[in-house]
């Protein structure tokens, strides 16, 4: 197996607190890996290390054979990234933004133009290419972000909640694009809270909690370990929380005063 993403003892300590326990992972080309975990589990920290933004960490990490600490520039040339929170320059148009991203990747203007136009049209943004993104909804911005992440044909895609805010048709399109990119040999690191999507899209699922990997395998393998008929949501809840949510909700309401429930 030729790993495109390789982590060896990857960990991070922040202000004396271990936010990421040592992780050893190999992700080959053509695999879609779902990276799941509750808030604060260390998902975004892992992603930021792998895309070469955070340099203070222990252990080693390689993307496409390049050390992310020593050669972050080479890593950045080969990856695409969709961040969790969609933030774009509102006062420029999607085409201007994509031209900026493409030029930084040293792409030809003509190629940027043709790819951007085609991709934006497929996302239903025809006629909006030259409009400033000021009035764009979250979903429209997410489409631009996704296009910006793939426009330079990267080998590895890091997606942090890429479907957030998208309409149903766009969700179906992105899911299919992810599947076909994986078939074309791209590695996809998919971080999300949407269990049903991860269950359908990902070949392999990694569940993380408090910086520690709790489970790693295909959905079928996780079911074998945790219970045959369980959904991914059940498995996730069991591994990361293990509490009775109904009892917790009752307790939550009771904190308002015992008469609230009685009423």
């Amino acid at each position: 197996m030729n790993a495109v993403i390789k982590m060896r003892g990857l960990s991070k300590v922040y202000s004396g607190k271990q936010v990421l326990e040592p992780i050893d992972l190999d992700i080959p080309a053509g695999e879609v890996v779902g990276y799941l975990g509750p808030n604060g589990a260390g998902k975004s920290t892992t992603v930021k290390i792998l895309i070469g933004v955070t340099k203070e960490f222990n252990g080693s990490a390689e993307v496409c054979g390049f050390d992310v600490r020593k050669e972050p520039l080479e890593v950045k040339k080969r990856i695409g990234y969709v961040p969790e929170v969609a933030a774009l320059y509102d006062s420029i148009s999607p085409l201007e933004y994509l031209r900026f991203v493409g030029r930084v990747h040293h792409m030809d203007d003509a190629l940027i133009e043709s790819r951007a136009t085609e991709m934006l049209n497929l996302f239903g943004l025809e006629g909006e290419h030259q409009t400033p993104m000021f009035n764009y909804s979250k979903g429209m911005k997410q489409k631009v972000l996704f296009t910006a992440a793939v426009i330079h044909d990267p080998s590895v895609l890091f997606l942090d909640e890429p479907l957030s805010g998208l309409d149903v048709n766009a969700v179906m399109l992105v899911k299919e694009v992810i599947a076909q990119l994986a078939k074309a040999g791209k590695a996809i690191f998919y971080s999300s809270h949407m269990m049903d999507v991860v269950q359908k899209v990902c070949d392999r699922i990694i569940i993380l909690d408090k910086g520690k990997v709790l489970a790693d395998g295909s959905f079928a393998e996780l079911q074998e370990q945790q219970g045959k008929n369980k959904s991914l949501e059940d498995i996730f809840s069991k591994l990361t929380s293990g509490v009775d949510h109904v009892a917790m909700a009752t307790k939550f309401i009771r904190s308002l005063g015992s008469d609230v429930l009685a009423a």
Partner: protein
Amino acid sequence: MQVLADVGTRLIRRWGLDGVQMAALARVQRRPGHGGAASAPADVQPRPRWLTVSLYLEFAPFAVLGQIGIAGILFPSFFLGLVFSYTVIMLLFGPLFLRRCTTALLDTSENRVLLHLPISDGTLLAVRLLSIAKHAGFLLFAISLPTAIALAARLGAVALLVFGISLVLTLLFLVAITLAICLVTLRHVKPARIKDGILAFQAVFFILALGVAGLALTDPSFVKGMPEVSRQAWWYFYPPAWMAGLLDYSLMGKTRFNSVLAATAALAPLASFVACIQLFAGGRFTELLSRLEVPRNSAVTPKRLPKWLTRLSEQISALTSGDKQERAVFDLTAKLTQNDWGTKWYVYPFIGGALFNCGLCVVMLRHGPMGGLALFVYCYTPICLAVGVRLIQYSAEWRAAWCHQVLPFAKQGVITSGATKVYICKYLLPIYLVLLAAGAAVWGAAVALNTLFALAVVMLVCVHCFWGATAAYSKDPWLMSKGFEKIGNFMWLPLVVGLIVTHIVLEAVAGTWGVIGGIVVMGGAIMVAFRRLRSRNMPADPVRGWSDENRHLAACKPPST
């Protein structure tokens, strides 16, 4: 005393000030990492001791000008010496304070947390004003210290006391102006255009202030015919003259002229301050804050450049950029500056001021030779524009700057050099083209050459000022004033003074050929500076520019885990 206390209590009750709420708000705003109007995150808090020393050192060359006025070296009249000192103080302090005051007052980042709570307008306004009082007092103290020392040495403790009172009155007057501008804008400008409206009013005010000061200080009769000038009625409308009149009245004996000025100095700032607070405390302040958050669908669409200008901008970008990445930054920054009101707020008044002074010089000195102080006022009025290049790092769209960290820039310096080139091409070159053309047409080649030298100085200062920046449009604009106070940020002043002195010496000693030689050397220095700027690799900034809603927590927690 009792009367004053009664008036104070009545005003506090009338404005609905709530001491408990004020203390609670002030406590929250003092916490490190709080990003609201009053403070900056912990990582941008300057070290006060070094800041003090740095401010004194950096303002010294300008503050000494005020001292000259007080010491009477240039001015035989005590009153006009004071007018000169107060003009210098107000021109140095006024723009900085107006900017800080507006940004603190109009901060909408706390809207979601505060506007639904039962807090009166008076309380909210008072907390915001108090939060900038310390900053303003410190800055004013740093600027006016040499003048204060000169006054105390010449006239004793009473002079110092009256001078201190005049500074407080100056502060109140500037707050009143800020509030009045906000109030007028709120009443007469569409919600989506409020920021643009405030920008326009402040620009007009600043151009007027700069123009009137320029008129006063470059008019030869100001120095020569002093006693005549001091009887002119227009001094009653010139705020530095009010304050000078107050000191003149207290220390040099009572005349009808200085009595009127002293009364104006005492009453005008106080009355305008109380009136503005009174008007704002009745629900208008929260109305202004909520109007500033215009819903997206009713907001004004960002302006687009005409096609020919877009083409010209792209051609300039291709001509000036070293490679594709720098060109990408150039094009992006050119588009962003089009709609960034923070940059416009700073740049337009100075462009207006420079054009105003250029027009003044042409009108007043067109029949005679151009030289001396007038020549340097003509050439160097746009120097403050150079400092404004730092504004390119601050944007309302700073959240979008995460892409600068993720994209494969060969060096981070490419971002800063591309952005600096936009600033120079868009703002500095056009204004200097006007100055060059007017200088050459009215006074001949010598003035044009001196203007060219000044342009080289301004460009070099521009590169210097953007040296420590992380990226273009990557920081929260509300941290702008705090960022400006960081140690080293005022180091442009000694550089400017050094280069201007070199210019004066070259012009005086070697004449036109000296200036030409200077231009060649400066051209080389600019090229070297740009090359070094491009090859810089700045440290990654995990907090600012990263698209993280909880950025304020990032100072205490790992970034977005």
